[in-house]
C-alpha cells in the first residue's frame, strides 16, 4: 500500500472552505456517527471504541476505551472534559481540527458522553485561540438549534450540555489534573497522585474523563464505519490514522494525517507529498519526534515507523505528533536553551526540582551561550538533570508531581550528550561579541505614565 492510501478519518472535510458549518457537516455524513451510537446501548458503544483500540492523542497515548472504563460504577454525575489546551511546542493539530471541523469534535464529545454516561461536558479551549473559540461557539449554537446538543438529543432520552470554556494562557493547564483545577476556577496547579486518573476523582472530585481534541474527533468515524475498520488500519498498538505537524527545516512544512503505525519518519520528512526533504539541500542534524518534551532523534532513527511501541523502545515518544526538524545550520546550544527556557517559564512552581532545576538549566545555558561558560558547566547541566529526573533514563523517573519537570531533562540531555563538542567549543572563550542590537528603551513607561511625563 502506498503511504497516501489510508482514508482521511479526521481531516476529510479540510478541502472545503465552509468545512466548519453545520450545512457542510450534514452534507458529509455529519452526525451519522451519533445516530449510530444512539441506536445502541452505551456499553455497546464503549465496546466499539475498545475494538478500535483508539490511543489518546494528547501525549501519553493511553487507550481511550480502557480509560473510560476506569470510572467507578454507581458514582454520579460523571463529567467529560475536552483538552483543547494545545501548547506543547511543535504541536499544531487540535487548533486546526477545532477551527476547520468543530462539528466533528462536538459529535465526538456527544458519543463519548453517551457511552460513559456523562451528565455534562466542558470543552476547554486554549485562551489564545480566538478563531477556534468563535468557530466552536458558532457550531455549538447551530448544534443546539438543530437538536444535536442539550435536552432530548435527536428526540431521545439522551441529554447533555456542552459548555465552551476558555483558558487564559498557561502550558501547565494541559496536564489533566491542572486542567480540572483550572476548570474549577483555580490556579492551574497539578494535583497530587494518586488517584492517577481523574476518572476516579476529577472535577469536583467526581469521576471525570479527560480526552484530547484529536482523540474525540475520531469517534464519529469509528461509530459510522465500525471499530474493526479503524483497527484494520495501522500496526501493533497504533491503530487508525494520526495527525502530525512537520515543522522546521523541511521544504514543505505542514500538518498531515497519515496511517498510524506504518508510515515512517523518513516518509514524513522526505516524501514529496509530506515534508519534501530538508530545505536548501542541507543535511538533517536532529529532529524532535513528539513535541518539546521528547528526547531528540537523529539520522539513524529515520526508518522507525510512527508506532508508539517502536518509538518508546527507541528512547523517545510520539507525544503530541509534533515533529520539529533541525538541519546542519542549527546552533544546538541555542536550540537547547530555547527549549529549556520554555519549561522554566511554564513550571508552575509547586515542586522544587522542577521550579529550581529548570531555571538553573536556563541560567547555565545562557552563560554558555554568552561566552561565560565554565569547564565544569556541562557536567553541572547533567547533574541538575539527574537531580530532576534521577538516572536521566527513558521513560524518565519522576521526583515531581507532574511530568513537566522531567520533560525539560530529555532534550537537554539529548543535546549535551550528542553535541558535546558544540557546547565545549563555547566554553571558556570569554565574552562573545554582542549580536543583538539593543535598540529600544530598556525601561518603557506605561501609556498613562507616558502621558503624565509629556504633560509635566
Amino acid at each position, binding site marked *: 500500500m502506498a503511504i497516501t492510501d489510508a482514508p482521511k478519518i479526521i481531516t476529510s472535510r479540510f478541502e472545503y472552505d465552509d468545512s466548519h458549518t453545520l450545512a457542510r457537516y450534514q452534507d458529509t455524513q455529519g452526525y451519522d456517527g451519533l445516530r449510530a451510537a444512539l441506536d445502541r446501548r452505551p456499553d455497546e458503544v464503549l465496546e466499539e471504541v475498545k475494538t478500535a483500540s483508539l490511543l489518546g492523542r494528547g501525549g501519553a497515548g493511553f487507550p481511550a476505551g480502557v480509560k473510560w472504563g476506569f470510572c467507578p460504577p454507581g458514582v*454520579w454525575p460523571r463529567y467529560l472534559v475536552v483538552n483543547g489546551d494545545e501548547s506543547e511546542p511543535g504541536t499544531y493539530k487540535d487548533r486546526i481540527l477545532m477551527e476547520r471541523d468543530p462539528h466533528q469534535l462536538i459529535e465526538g464529545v456527544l458519543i463519548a458522553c453517551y457511552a460513559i*454516561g456523562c451528565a455534562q461536558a466542558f470543552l476547554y479551549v486554549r*485562551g489564545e485561540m480566538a*478563531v477556534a473559540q468563535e468557530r466552536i461557539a458558532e457550531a*455549538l449554537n447551530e448544534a443546539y438549534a438543530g437538536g444535536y446538543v442539550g435536552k432530548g438529543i435527536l428526540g431521545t432520552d439522551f441529554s447533555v450540555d456542552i459548555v465552551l470554556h476558555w483558558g487564559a494562557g498557561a502550558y501547565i493547564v494541559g496536564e489533566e489534573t491542572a486542567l480540572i483545577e483550572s476548570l474549577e*476556577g483555580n*490556579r492551574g496547579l497539578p494535583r497530587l497522585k494518586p488517584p492517577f486518573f481523574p476518572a476516579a476523582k476529577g472535577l469536583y472530585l467526581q469521576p471525570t474523563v479527560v480526552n484530547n481534541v484529536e482523540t474525540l474527533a475520531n469517534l464519529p468515524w469509528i461509530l459510522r464505519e465500525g471499530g474493526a475498520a479503524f483497527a484494520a488500519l495501522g500496526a501493533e498498538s497504533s491503530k487508525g490514522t494520526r495527525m502530525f505537524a512537520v515543522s*522546521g527545516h523541511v521544504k514543505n512544512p505542514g500538518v498531515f494525517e497519515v496511517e498510524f503505525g506504518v508510515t515512517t519518519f523518513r516518509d514524513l520528512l522526505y516524501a514529496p507529498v509530506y515534508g519534501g526533504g530538508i530545505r536548501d539541500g542541507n543535511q538533517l542534524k536532529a529532529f524532535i519526534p513528539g513535541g518539546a518534551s521528547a528526547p531528540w532523534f537523529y539520522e539513524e532513527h529515520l526508518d522507525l515507523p510512527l508506532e508508539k511501541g517502536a518509538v518508546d523502545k527507541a528512547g523517545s515518544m510520539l507525544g503530541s505528533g509534533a515533529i520539529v526538524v533541525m538541519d546542519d545550520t542549527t546552533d544546538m546550544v541555542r536550540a537547547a536553551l530555547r527549549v529549556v527556557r*520554555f519549561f522554566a517559564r511554564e513550571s508552575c512552581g509547586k515542586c522544587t526540582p522542577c521550579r529550581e532545576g529548570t531555571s538553573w538549566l536556563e541560567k547555565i545555558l545562557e552563560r554558555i551561550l554568552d561566552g561565560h561558560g565554565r569547564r565544569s558547566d556541562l557536567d553541572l547541566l547533567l547533574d541538575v538533570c539527574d537531580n530532576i529526573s534521577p538516572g536521566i533514563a527513558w521513560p524518565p523517573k519522576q521526583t515531581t508531581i507532574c511530568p513537566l519537570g522531567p520533560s525539560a531533562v530529555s532534550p537537554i540531555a539529548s543535546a549535551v550528550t550528542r553535541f558535546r563538542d558544540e557546547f565545549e567549543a563555547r566554553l571558556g572563550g570569554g565574552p562573545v561579541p554582542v549580536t543583538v542590537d539593543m535598540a529600544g*528603551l530598556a525601561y518603557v513607561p506605561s501609556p498613562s505614565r507616558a502621558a503624565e511625563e509629556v504633560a509635566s
Partner: protein
Amino acid sequence: MARLTPENIELAREIIGRYPRPKSALIPLLHVAQEQDGYVAADAMEHLAELVGVTPAEVLGTCSFYEMFKREPVGRYVVNVCTNIACLVLGGEELLHHAEQTLGVKAGGTTADGLFTLEDVECIAACTEAPCLQVNYRYEHRISHEGFDALIEDLREGRRADIPPHGTLARVRQRVPAASAAGPARPGECGEPVWVFARPAPPKDG
C-alpha cells in the same frame, strides 16, 4: 477602574448559570472584565468575587496565574511573537528583534502612544507556519520583516477591522436557549443518567 456594567453583569450571570459551581466561571468572567476595560481592573476583580461568592484574594490568585490577564493597561494591540523552537529555527528571534526596532520598545513594553504592546511568547500552535505571531490572538503566518512593518502600518492606519481591540477574544459567544438546555449537573443532585439505566448492559455470564 471599573466594576462590570449592567449588561456585563447579566452576561456574567448567564455564564455562571452554565456551571455546576459558580467559581468555575471565574476564568471566562475575567475575560469579560478584560474585554470591558482592555485589562482586568482591581474593582472588576472585587466585583467578580461578589458574583461568584469567593474572596477578592482568590480572584487575584487565579487572575495572576494566567499569562493572558493583564492587570495594568496595555496597548490597543498586543503583538505576540513566537520564539519557541519551531519558530526559532526559522528566524523567530530575529523577527522579535526586528519588531523591537520597528516599535521602539523591548519585548514586554508598550509604545508611548499606547497602541502596541510587544511580547515574546511560547508556542502558539502554528509551528508549520513559522515564523509567526498573533495580534490580539489573531494569527499572522509566515511573516517576513517587511510583512511585519506593513502589518504595523495597517494597524496604525486602522486598516485591520478584522482585529478587535485587546480584551475582545471571541466575537461569537455560546448562547444556550433555556428551552433546549439540559442544565448543569451538580454533584449531589444527579443520579444515574436516564439513557444509561434505561438501557442496562446485559448481565455478564457466570
